[in-house]
Structures are given as structure tokens and as C-alpha cells.
């Protein structure tokens, strides 16, 4: 009966041909390619030698790779605490009746998340700069020029310093997401809680948080996925240095493949990034859902 929903097969085929072909070619073909080349020794030239699992054996013992993986996890944790944590506190503040100019705060706060990570990295390079940076300028103004450093050259500090721009860039983003979730809650809930004498902290933790837990789950997932692929900021700010103190997985894969043109091992690292990211994202999802269900039960 329905001609609309039952168009001719070739019409559908023609409509789907280009997008499906493009998608398969750019997503699945490279995935399979990486998998195949990960079993070869290949320095980018015409010679490829099949070496079985050798690349994977090297990878398991490659301390730099596992250090990079650790740095990705560091970024994930720092950003969940920093971005979502600070964003939640700010939402509690901005939702207070006493705060004015809410729209302006929202617009300004969201702004950094629309800027290219490359720009953000360059701006923070300037902020951290030894001679012309704002931090050292400030230290001099308060009379502590002795504390001034070439900030991004400090191996112990560098991970913290590269996570600050990342955190800063997305606080407003998560703030807006959480705000829109809270806006959909019935305001009566807050009013009755206020009448019952719950203070601001109690209201935030015991009433708001459980009501927006699905949104928080989305935020955490975005945070994890976003930081497993950290690359742009690191590339611009430190290229993984000093040494390998701020190396992340994508940066390491890039260096091995393009600076050392070790494409075989680079492919192996790509497969590892793929698998590890899926494990971390999937695992954390399962864990979070279980925690939430236990809380309910």
C-alpha cells in the first residue's frame, strides 16, 4: 500500500551508495589496513617483512607506550575532576537567585570550547612562556621572581601544566550541559527541599545530583572519549616532551610512524590505541552503570 516507504530498490541503492562507500573507505579500510600492517616490519619504503607478533611483543615491553597510556588516563581523571567537578560547582553558583548576568556568564564560559585546540595550546604557550609569559610576569609583580621557571620544561610539572588548558577549555561546555539538565527538573523539588531546611550543599548532592545522573554519565563518557584521543594540545605545547614526560598515545603513534617512519610498529600502536580506548570507554561505562544501579538498590 505504501509507495513512499517502499521505493524501488535501485533508488535506495543510489542514494546510499556514495555515503556508505565513503564511510567504509575512510573508517573500515584503514582499520583493517592497520591490523594487517601491524604484523609487518615496514619502514615506510617498498619493503615489508612479515614478522608475526614481533611488533606486539615489542609493544608489551615498550615503557614509553605504557607511560603514554598512563598519561591519557591521567588526563581523563584530571578532566573528569576538573571539568565536570568545577562545572557542577559553578552550575550550583549560577543557579542561585542571587547571581546576575547569567546569560553573559553562559556565553563567555562556553566560548573557549568553540576555539581550536591548536589556538588554545598556542595561547597557553604564551601564558607559560619564560620571558613573556603571564605567569612569570605575575610572579615578578608579587615579588617572587625566584619562582619563575621555563614551565613546560619541568618533567614533574608538565602533565599538570598541559591538563590545565584542557580543563579550562571545557569547564563552560560541561557547565552548559549540566545547566540544561537541571533546567528540565521541576523547580518545586528545590523549593520543597529549601523549606525542609536542606542547605545548599545538601541540595546539590542529595537532590540535584541523583536527578541529573544520566547527564553526568554522558559528561563523563564525553570526557573519557575526548581525553583518550588527546593530541592537538600536546602537539602544539610540548610534542610529548621534555623527553617523554607528556607523551600521550596518539602523539607517540604519530612520532613512531612519521618522525621515525616506522610504519609497521606505528600500525601496531594504532591497533593498540583502538583496543585500549574501547576497553577504557566500555569498561568505565559498565562500571559507572553498576555503581548507579547499586545506589538505587
Amino acid at each position, binding site marked *: 500500500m505504501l509507495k513512499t516507504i517502499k521505493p524501488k530498490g535501485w533508488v535506495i541503492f543510489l542514494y546510499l551508495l556514495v*555515503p556508505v562507500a565513503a564511510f567504509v573507505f575512510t573508517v573500515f579500510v584503514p582499520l583493517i589496513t592497520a591490523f594487517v600492517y601491524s604484523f609487518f616490519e615496514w619502514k615506510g619504503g617498498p619493503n615489508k617483512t612479515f614478522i608475526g607478533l614481533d611488533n606486539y611483543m615489542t609493544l608489551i615491553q615498550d615503557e614509553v607506550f605504557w607511560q603514554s597510556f598512563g598519561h591519557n588516563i591521567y588526563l581523563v581523571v584530571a578532566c573528569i575532576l576538573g571539568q565536570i567537578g568545577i562545572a557542577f560547582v559553578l552550575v550550583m553558583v549560577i543557579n542561585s537567585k542571587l*547571581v546576575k548576568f547569567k546569560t553573559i556568564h553562559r556565553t563567555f564560559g562556553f566560548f573557549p570550547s568553540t576555539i581550536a585546540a591548536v589556538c588554545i595550546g598556542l595561547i597557553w604557550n604564551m601564558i607559560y612562556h619564560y620571558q*613573556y609569559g603571564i605567569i612569570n610576569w605575575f610572579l615578578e609583580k608579587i615579588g617572587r621572581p625566584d619562582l619563575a621557571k621555563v614551565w613546560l620544561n619541568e618533567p614533574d610539572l608538565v602533565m599538570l601544566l598541559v591538563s590545565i588548558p584542557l580543563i579550562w577549555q571545557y569547564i563552560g561546555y560541561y557547565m552548559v550541559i549540566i545547566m*540544561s539538565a537541571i533546567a528540565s527538573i521541576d523547580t518545586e523539588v528545590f523549593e520543597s527541599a529549601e523549606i525542609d531546611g536542606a542547605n545548599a550543599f545538601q541540595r546539590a548532592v542529595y537532590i540535584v545530583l541523583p536527578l541529573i545522573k544520566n547527564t553526568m554519565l554522558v559528561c563523563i563518557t564525553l570526557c573519557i572519549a575526548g581525553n583518550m584521543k588527546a593530541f*592537538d594540545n600536546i602537539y602544539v605545547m610540548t610534542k610529548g616532551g621534555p623527553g617523554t614526560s607528556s607523551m600521550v598515545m596518539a602523539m607517540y603513534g604519530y612520532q613512531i610512524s612519521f618522525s621515525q617512519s616506522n610504519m609497521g610498529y606505528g600500525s601496531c600502536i594504532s591497533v593498540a590505541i583502538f583496543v585500549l580506548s*574501547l576497553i577504557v570507554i566500555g569498561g568505565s561505562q559498565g562500571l559507572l552503570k553498576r555503581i548507579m544501579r547499586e545506589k538505587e538498590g
Partner: protein
Amino acid sequence: MANVNTEIKTHKLRDGILSVFLNLVMAVFSLTCIFPLIWMLYSSFKEKRAFNADIIGLPKEPTLTNYIRILTNSDYHLGESMMNSVRTTGLSVLFIVLFGFIVGYILARVKFRGNRLLYVMFLMGMLIPIHSLLVPIYVVFNNAGISNRWFTLLLPYVSFGLPLAIFLVEGYVKGIPIALEEAAAIDGSSFSRTLWTIILPICKPILVTVAIIQVFGNWNEFSFALVLIKDVALQTVPLALTQFKGQFASDYPKQMAAMLITMSPIVILYFAFSKEIIKGMVAGAVKG
């Protein structure tokens, strides 16, 4: 009575202090978000020497030399990069919206063998950590001889943008009453005609959302451009900026001017339509 009065007074005082404190917190936050932009804006009007002498002060002798030098010196390829970014972003967004609409609609409404398979395939595209494709995509594109061309970046940008677009359109179309298409079919409207003249206008809001998300994402994309584009004349804006970093290592005002020029389309777009943009980005994030 006096007691009640003082109680009200202390209550008011407490509210007053709290109000100052809370407003201050938000003001500081907003300021840190916007400060780098303002700092770059006024510093870009300084000469290098003036900036190095005082990095934070307002320019005493504002000058446009930084902008003039950047825009007139063809070695910097800034104009070209802007054109490349405009073309790449424009075409990518167009194709994502177009294909997202077609595929999203077909997956939502047309029953055919493989419908669910395709849906799952595109859904997987959202779950796949695409940065693991950075190296292999270079290999595949090089072998196929399509890296380092003007259209090279369209393929990854469209492909990576499609899953979210399809997902959003599919969900949206499912909310449209099917009676509409049934009526059109009875009136003798063909599949394509219904698709383009009836469904497309209805889907406009969700397609605008898709476009907003993708404009920002594609304008700012860096890593795949870095891997796939080697020719300076073909580079997009983020690539050009990393070049500047090397060229003007210690000339911050010039770097700032370059950054502001490349950011300007995004910044203007954002502040002109911030409400719609924020709404669109949040909808995309939460539903995706």
C-alpha cells in the same frame, strides 16, 4: 520585636555577602574565559618591542603593522589557508548535512534487508576511537594517491561527521507522523519528491543543529590535516598556525594577530548566534 529585627538584618547581611561572593565567583570565571581573547586583541596592536617591554599593558601607540605584514607577505600563506579552511569546512558540512539527511531518513523509514546492519555500522562509527585511524588513514590515502589534494580532507571530515548526523536525523524523522508521507504517496508523489519537498523542510531544525556542530568541529580540526596535507598551499588554518609558531617564535603580537584573523569567522559566528549555537552543541553532545 528587636530580636526579630536584628535577625532579619543579619539575614539580609548574610544574603548580601553571599550575593557578592557568588557574583564574584562567576565574574572571575567568565573573565578567565574571555581574557585571553581580549589580551590577544589589544596586544596584536603592539609592536614586538612594546609588547616585550610590557606584556600586559594596553598599547600606547596602537599600530596595524602586524596585520598588514601578515596579510601582505605571501610566504605566510594566511589568505590561502583561510580559503582552504572555508572551502573544506563549507563542503564537508554541506555533504554531512546532505548525506546525513538521506541516510538518516532511509534508515528511519525504509524497510530493506541490511537496514539494521547499516545502522549498526554507522553507530559503530561513533564508538570507534577515530584517532587510532591517524596513521592507517595516511597509509591508505597515500596508496590510493589521494593524499595531499584539495579534496583530501573532505573524506575523513564527512565520514567522521556522518554517524552523529545520521543518528540525530534518524531520531528526528521517527518523530514525524508517517501519515504525512502516506498522504503524499496517495497524491502520487514519488519517493524522491516526498523526500526533498516534504521531509527536508520539516527536518530543517535538526539539520541546522548538525551544521552548527560540524562547522566548529571541521574548522578547528588539526590532527588529520597534519597527517594528510603536506603542501603548504593546501594547508588549513590550524596547520598554518603551527607553522607561524615556528616562524614567529618570539614575535607574540604577530602570532596573536595571525590567530585572531583565523579565529575571526568562528568568533563572529559564535557571538552573533551564541544562543542557537550553544543549544545545538548541547543537543548534539547529549543525544550523541
